[in-house]
């Protein structure tokens, strides 16, 4: 569609009537007529990474903004260096949604592919899940299933039954064995289909095709490393919160047409832009009378724009080439915001720690001691209404601290209980793209990683953990909990934050603990703080330049951490009240155990050293266990 020549790019917004009839209007007219303007441009970022200015109009540059846009547009890698040709960033699970140009390219590419067929989808649906069997255990597992099948056949023969189904109906004691044998048979067929689908979509390479020389070769039918990595990439592309196995959510997506998956991605990206444009946080998680505005507004926007269906979205991208997303903004009519919304809302955060264990996680013999929880920690954003009533706007699972590995000054690792403080606090400072300054207690093994530098694998400081970045221990945004100072004294910072996190399963895991901080998925943390900052009195402080340099020895090499900035700060005045509820203390110990606790089975040169004390040592977010999920499905 030709743009209206009379309205400059930066002033025009697109209105779509009846799903397809497009016309441009001036942005001021749109706003005056009650439209909400949703930014479809490729350089869109959430509010916290948007360009901010001083009251005098001077730009306060954010050094992570360029990287964030580059990641969303598949142009840059996590360091801000150019992304190698053909590589994609699948970062929705890390809080970064693909740009509209990237989504458009996916629609174009996948529309030409023939990876999906009804028969294959039926095979995947029939299996529902595929049990994980390690490559080393496959032969034994096959033998066990074959043995079970022979047992079943022998028993059927002796019972003079015509079929196994008839036999099991007569003697239901055999039903579990038959079910297992049939499940494994269905899984074998489904595995073939999964391999075909992942190969067709470019996630799993056939031997010798499209893979690096160093890449391991997938063995057909085996859940080996190449397969696991392919599944992980598929899950990350489609924002599937599952560990890297073929569980229900992953299998469902593998059975769906490619464009249906792309459309789901599009709707997720649209949701973030609508939530930002409408300036809402209510997503139905709080229950009660608070509506799910995130879904309601996204659905309305998609319907008005003709984007509620795969076909409509394909047609939209057909009408709009990638170049349109340099300037494209759309206007949608959404219901008025709730009456309780205002520029100055009486907001507060309440964190319920849920069930808490202080006991050691192992017994006298060193064997793990289970510490089950029925109630998990939750973070709620409350609003006080005109009648003084506290109303939750959203409520999400979060984490609290627990037993973690800690590096002591003697160079050895011990266990240490890293708990979450209880009681009233405030958040004065919110930092976008926060940098976690690793304290001395950080296990050094977590501070070094291998990275491809040019064509050469090189050991480097693990800046992923430090940030700024989506993998940072503080995620993409953090609110700093402090106890306000009284009588002119400064605030007391005990190192606890509520922050986004790349450990996207830890919030939903029975065994997920932090180092004291309260983690949220990055995209929810972004929504939370964007909403808070836009509904409270706050000041944009901007980039927190610093010149921290620290060295440490790893093997025979010295590594130097260099941190040029602590992130991009916003300060709320008055600060946001926070209350952390104690929760239910389980077990024998009713107080946290302080100090280092030797790890079972580890020999130390002497008694544990005394605990050092500083906000950074106490700070949560130590990435001690950023490993792939090891749990068997």
């Amino acid at each position, binding site marked *: 569609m030709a743009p209206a020549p009379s309205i400059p790019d930066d002033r025009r917004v697109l209105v779509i009537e009846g799903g397809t009839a497009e016309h441009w209007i001036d942005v001021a007219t749109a706003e005056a007529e009650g439209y909400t303007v949703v930014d479809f441009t490729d350089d869109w970022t959430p509010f916290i990474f948007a360009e901010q200015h001083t009251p005098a109009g001077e730009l306060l540059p954010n050094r992570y903004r360029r990287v964030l846009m580059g990641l969303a547009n598949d142009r840059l890698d996590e360091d801000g260096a150019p992304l190698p040709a053909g590589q994609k960033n699948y970062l929705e699970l890390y809080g970064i949604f693909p740009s509209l140009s990237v989504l458009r390219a996916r629609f174009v590419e996948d529309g030409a592919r023939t990876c999906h067929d009804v028969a294959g989808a039926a095979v995947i649906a029939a299996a529902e899940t595929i049990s994980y069997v390690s490559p080393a255990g496959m032969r034994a597992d096959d033998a066990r299933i074959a043995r079970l099948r022979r047992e079943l056949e022998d028993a059927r023969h002796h019972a003079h039954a015509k079929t196994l189904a008839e036999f099991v109906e007569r003697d239901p004691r055999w039903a579990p064995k038959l079910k297992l044998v049939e499940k494994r048979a269905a899984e074998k067929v489904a595995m073939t289909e999964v391999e075909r689908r992942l190969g067709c979509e470019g996630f799993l390479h056939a031997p010798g095709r499209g893979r690096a020389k160093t890449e391991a070769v997938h063995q057909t039918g085996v859940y080996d490393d190449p397969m696991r990595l392919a599944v992980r990439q598929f899950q990350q592309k489609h924002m599937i919160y599952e*560990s890297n196995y073929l569980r229900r959510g992953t299998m469902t997506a593998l059975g769906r047409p490619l464009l249906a998956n792309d459309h789901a991605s599009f709707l997720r990206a649209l949701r973030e832009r609508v939530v930002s444009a409408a300036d809402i946080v209510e997503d139905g998680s709080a229950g009660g009378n608070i509506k799910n505005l995130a879904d309601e507004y996204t659905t309305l926007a998609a319907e008005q724009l003709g984007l509620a269906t795969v076909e409509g979205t394909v047609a939209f991208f057909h009408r709009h080439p990638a170049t349109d997303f340099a300037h494209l903004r759309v206007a949608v009519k959404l219901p008025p915001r709730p009456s309780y919304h205002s520029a100055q809302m009486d907001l507060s955060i309440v964190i319920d720690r849920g069930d808490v264990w202080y006991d050691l996680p192992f017994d006298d013999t060193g064997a793990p001691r289970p510490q089950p929880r029925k109630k998990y920690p939750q973070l709620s954003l409350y609003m006080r209404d005109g009648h003084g009533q506290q109303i939750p706007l959203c409520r999400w699972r979060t984490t609290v601290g627990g037993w973690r590995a800690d590096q002591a000054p003697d160079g050895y690792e011990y266990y240490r209980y890293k708990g979450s403080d209880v009681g009233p606090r405030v958040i004065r400072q919110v930092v976008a793209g926060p940098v976690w300054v690793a304290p001395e207690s950080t296990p*050094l093994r977590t501070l070094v990683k291998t990275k491809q530098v*040019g064509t050469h694998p090189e050991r480097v400081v693990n800046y992923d953990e430090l940030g700024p970045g989506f993998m940072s221990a503080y995620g993409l945004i953090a609110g700093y909990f402090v106890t306000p100072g009284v009588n002119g004294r400064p605030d007391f910072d005990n190192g606890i934050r509520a922050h986004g996190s790349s450990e996207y399963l830890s919030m939903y895991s029975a*065994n997920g603990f932090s180092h004291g901080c309260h983690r949220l998925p990055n995209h929810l943390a972004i929504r939370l703080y964007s909403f808070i900052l836009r509904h409270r009195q706050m000041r944009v402080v901007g980039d927190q330049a610093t010149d921290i340099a620290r060295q440490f020895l790893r093997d025979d*090499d*010295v590594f130097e951490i260099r*941190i040029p900035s602590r992130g991009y700060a916003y300060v709320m005045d008055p600060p946001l009240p926070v209350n952390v509820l104690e929760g239910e203390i389980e077990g024998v110990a009713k107080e946290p155990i302080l100090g280092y606790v030797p790890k079972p089975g580890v020999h130390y040169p002497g008694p544990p050293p005394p605990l050092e004390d500083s906000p950074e040592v106490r700070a949560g977010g130590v990435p001690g266990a950023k490993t792939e999920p090891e749990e068997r499905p």
Partner: protein
Amino acid sequence: MSRWTVPLAALLAVGGAIAVAGDTDKVKISIQTIPAMTPPAKAEVRMGKKTLGLILGPRKPFILERPRDSGPLDLVIRAEGFLPLHTRAYTFSDSKLTVKLTRIADKPTLFGYRQAGPPDAGTTSSAHPDAGAVDPLIPR
């Protein structure tokens, strides 16, 4: 002072300020060793397999030119008789990267050095890996 912290006074302008409109398209990064630390006669600056240049002495830094805001550079600085140093330079703006090299004999002065202990000491992972949600709630 902790062994963890490098003498900051000697480490100038780690990353510099952020570029603003009007700055040139390239940045200059001056890489040098700390004179007070008995520097080697010359040190090699490498990135991956590539040697970028040499620091020839206390007042003879190696100047590296890069496109502005083109991402950080992971460098290794090597000199005979010293431990290799892995460091990072940023491309936000012109900056000086002053590094302290450590003689091999001074290894025990570095943070992270530990006397040899019994085998496999302190190498096990955390008690509670953060992953493996069995039945995740799907947030939106």
